[in-house]
């Protein structure tokens, strides 16, 4: 930000070019029968080549459209992708607690554990099994908060193949086809009401 170069400016303009093609896009919340809160969590491993930190991405949907999302660089360097995912999942745990509070406050109903989809098997195992793992000795207590959440049935991690991992879109640049696929799946669409009117 102090000394922007031409390449940064170009990247900025690239975003504007994208924006121009999608300025009519938005989130489309359709009336559905099965309306449930669910989430996706993902992390890219050492995505930043300068300091080797990873990026956490997460998206929450109610029904089939996103209501909350984030893409955040992690604060510390990790050794494995499972660890990066584990840290991302701990961020999700905090969000889940907050979102469930709102839902209970609004509708006052009992909520089943919120399903969070993750594409890393070791991360899921780690969250469900409170055994002391040798390889995860160094992970800070703060990240083990997620185990507590799983045990208290606030949330549970469930496996999803990488192709259907919608939080992928929030961790790194994707190819066009993948980008559009995930974008559609989180409920982003061209304004359906505008299109109909023009026809």
């Amino acid at each position: 930000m102090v000394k922007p170069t031409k390449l940064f400016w170009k990247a900025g303009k690239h975003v504007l070019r994208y924006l121009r093609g999608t300025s009519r896009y938005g989130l489309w919340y359709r009336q559905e029968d099965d309306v449930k809160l669910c989430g996706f969590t993902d992390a890219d491993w050492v995505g930043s080549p300068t300091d080797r930190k990873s990026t956490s991405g997460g998206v929450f949907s109610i029904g089939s459209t996103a209501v909350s999302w984030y893409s955040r660089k992690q604060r510390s360097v990790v050794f494995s992708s499972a660890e990066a995912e584990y840290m991302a999942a701990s961020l999700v745990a905090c969000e889940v607690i907050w979102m469930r509070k709102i839902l209970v406050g609004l509708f006052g109903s009992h909520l089943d554990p919120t399903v969070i989809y993750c594409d890393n098997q070791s991360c899921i195992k780690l969250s469900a099994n409170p055994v002391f793992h040798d390889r995860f000795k160094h992970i800070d207590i703060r990240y083990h908060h997620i185990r507590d959440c799983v045990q208290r049935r606030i949330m549970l991690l469930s496996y999803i193949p990488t192709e259907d991992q919608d939080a992928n879109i929030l961790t790194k640049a994707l190819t066009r086809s993948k980008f559009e696929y995930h974008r559609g799946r989180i409920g982003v669409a061209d304004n359906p009401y505008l299109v109909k009117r023009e026809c």
Partner: protein
Amino acid sequence: MLIIVLYVDDLILTGDELLILSCKKNLATEFEMKDLGLLHYFLGLEIWQRSGGLFVSQGKYAREILENFNMHGCKLVDTPLPGGWRKEDATSGEEVDATIYRQLVGSLMYLVNT
């Protein structure tokens, strides 16, 4: 049930139809109010309410940014970041006007965060 969302001096009411009507009546006796009908624009968000769905978009603000940076006639791309773009490559090279660059980043960040 009736939910009232309050932002500074704007109110959004949602919930049971009859309750909304009586609440509006009661509020109007107490405060000076204007009823703008069905919600269609709030804090930069365009809201389209139709039977069977609801669509939320920031198109107006996005187009304002494009106007500000004279990009309303630019070429289109499919993804927000060019493939293979690396931050390290961009740290050296010719410098550009920092003020305009910051304005651009600021506008985009506002768009993302609202």
